[in-house]
């Protein structure tokens, strides 16, 4: 499978793509790294390119450093996250049965996921019986091709109500490249555009298996317009969003609005089943997107992440997200961000590449996300699981990773008091050399990866051991 421009990350997750050159996690220490160290800063991640000239997606810490450097954006982010957090706390604190709802929500999602094939087949049957068509897309490019083909049949102009799945498969850009006119339903002329379009595309929040119903929650009604007015409706859905039965919506219609927008219920909720004679589109398509989801499903521990209903509450409460925002998690703007993104992306894409391997480490494991998650995804547990996978994936390399090499050296050094003392003395002299203003921002060379996300205080001129020896000697002389 060849990688086309700009879509390396999103494609065929089960066919490992070549590693991102220039940012290998094994820590190639080349001239570029050295120059950046001398210059005291990282190169701009936006400008970095691999040897093949394609942009290399930055690792979390690199992108985060840029985000952190923008004080204005950080201020705005902290403010909007703070507001979201307050609304979230009020909305989830209100129902007296909130914990019972979360427990039921987690079980409902597990029930759907652990028998996903059966539920998707039931969904397809129900949609077909109601006059709709279900399409299956194993990856993003298949999804784009299906939608483009339907759009071309419909005259080459589509109204799009943007949503996470549509961004995930990079739909709008791909349609435009094929010469299809894409009208943003939420844009300034959205109202008129949707009214004029013959084909509309929306996302979906839930797929009810036993009834074939698609459920979509929103604030602005752009999707509601798209699924009501044009002749042809194409609904693109992550196939993980199956829900066993309509009755289960009584739980999810409480969990999602309260965690997503801090609302008791989202301003507009649409639920529809196939084609409704005399009401709305006469042609209804549902595109079920895999794009890495079966890979997540195949990880017995990691599959818990598929419970996600896309509320974003984990981001709202995350102390890391609050400071760095979306971009470091998702530089391409196509995947989930925040704590769930740090789990989802490496699960869906694997940890072969430096960027995805860096994501499980983008957390302090404080646990706030797990506490707020409406479907009780143990995000910290999954992060630890993935950190293990990253370490395992690198354990058997012929050249040990810097971490492993350092750990082995450290074990040898610390096994002997004299070796240790000599090393501490040498080490602190060197450390003071790389410190700036009493702080070490980044250790040089192979150790840099360890220290890039935190500053260290420069070690004192004299170690405790040597101070103690001197002090004791002086005391003894006096005594």
């Amino acid at each position, binding site marked *: 499978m060849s990688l086309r421009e700009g879509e390396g990350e999103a494609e065929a997750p089960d066919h490992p793509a070549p590693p991102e050159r220039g940012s290998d996690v094994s820590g190639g220490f080349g001239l570029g790294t050295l120059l950046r160290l001398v210059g005291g800063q990282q190169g701009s991640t936006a400008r970095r390119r691999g040897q093949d000239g394609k942009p290399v997606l930055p690792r979390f810490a690199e992108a985060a450093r840029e985000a952190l450097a923008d004080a204005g954006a950080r201020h705005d982010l902290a403010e909007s996250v703070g507001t979201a957090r307050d609304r979230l706390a009020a909305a989830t604190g209100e129902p007296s049965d909130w914990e019972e709802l979360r427990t039921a929500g987690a079980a409902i999602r597990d029930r759907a996921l652990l028998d996903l094939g059966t539920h998707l087949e039931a969904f397809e049957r129900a949609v077909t019986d109601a006059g709709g068509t279900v399409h299956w897309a194993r990856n993003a490019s298949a999804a784009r091709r299906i939608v483009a083909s339907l759009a071309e049949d419909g005259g080459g102009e589509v109204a799009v109500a943007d949503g996470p799945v549509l961004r995930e498969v990079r739909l709008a850009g791909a349609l435009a490249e094929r010469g299809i006119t894409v009208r943003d339903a939420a844009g300034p002329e959205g109202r008129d555009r949707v009214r004029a379009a013959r084909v509309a595309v929306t996302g979906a929040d839930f797929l009810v298996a036993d009834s074939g119903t698609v459920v979509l929650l929103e604030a602005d009604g752009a999707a509601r317009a798209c699924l009501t007015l044009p002749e042809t409706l194409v609904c693109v859905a992550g196939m993980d969003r199956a829900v066993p039965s309509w009755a289960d919506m009584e739980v999810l219609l409480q969990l999602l609005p309260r965690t997503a927008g801090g609302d*008791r219920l989202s301003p507009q909720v649409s639920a529809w089943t196939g084609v409704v004679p*005399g009401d*709305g589109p006469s042609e209804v398509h549902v595109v079920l997107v895999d794009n890495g989801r079966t890979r997540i499903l195949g990880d017995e521990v990691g599959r818990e992440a598929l419970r996600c209903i896309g509320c974003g509450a984990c981001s709202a409460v995350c102390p890391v997200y609050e400071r760095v925002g979306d971009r470091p998690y998702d530089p391409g703007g196509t995947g989930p961000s925040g704590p769930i993104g740090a789990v989802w992306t490496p699960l869906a894409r694997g940890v072969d590449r430096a960027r995805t391997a860096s994501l499980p480490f983008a957390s302090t494991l404080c646990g706030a996300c797990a506490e707020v998650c409406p479907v009780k995804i143990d995000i910290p547990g999954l992060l630890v699981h993935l950190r293990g996978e990253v370490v395992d994936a690198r354990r058997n390399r012929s050249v040990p990773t810097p971490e492993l090499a350092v750990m082995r050296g450290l074990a040898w050094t610390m096994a002997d008091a004299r070796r240790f003392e000599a090393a501490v003395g040498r080490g602190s002299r060197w450390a003071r050399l790389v410190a700036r203003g009493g702080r070490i921002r980044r250790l040089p060379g192979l150790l840099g990866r360890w220290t890039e996300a935190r500053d260290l205080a420069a070690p004192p001129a004299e170690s405790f051991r040597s101070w103690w020896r001197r002090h004791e000697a002086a005391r003894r002389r006096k005594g």
Partner: protein
Amino acid sequence: MTARDEAPRRAAGPDEEPARRTARDGVLRRVRGALGAPRRTPVPVPRGYLTRLTGPEAATRADVVALFTERVAALGVAVRHVGADELATAVAAVLWGWEARRIVVPSDLPFGWLAELDGVRALADSPVLDVPALAGVDGVVTGCAVAVAQTGTVVLDGGRAQGRRALTLVPDRHLCVVHADQVVGAVPEAVRRLDPALPQTWISGPPSASSPGGPPHGPPHGPRTLGMLVVDD
């Protein structure tokens, strides 16, 4: 799995079906492969949550209806309680307040609701009105299928006096008549009253602009002015 089903193909009618089936079978095979042996029993769902509104807010029917009114008003909806015999006057008063000249109504709207209109032309959606016609009216009057007190929501499902979805989407003002016996306490009660085969629109206040701080966007879709009349029995 191979990538064979991904080979570029021309878009076209009936010969898409084999490709659709290949993709379908491929995805389902991968799903089943990922899950391993099929489960004997489905995952049990502990349903310890409340399935109806409880507590002082739901002590009597009147309390539930009062809560609905309060929550709807909090969402920025002009809401009034009326007796059944005052309904026609109240509908006329709301439309007069909107300075509406022409409105659209579902063809099965009870005739009595519009009995007091003075100087307002009501177009029935029969024969079916096109979008420009709907965009040209000053408002729409409908009933609803069910209303939820806790969330201040009305749900339309295309049933009696509700019309098709475009009717309550395109006009910029929507007056919804809610009968007190249609008001339930909580979301589960509403879900249980509704049939998923019918197209549903749950409306909780007027639409709001999405993603504050995001890119500039236009006016939201759906009526920006909502009015409600709660008819006490």
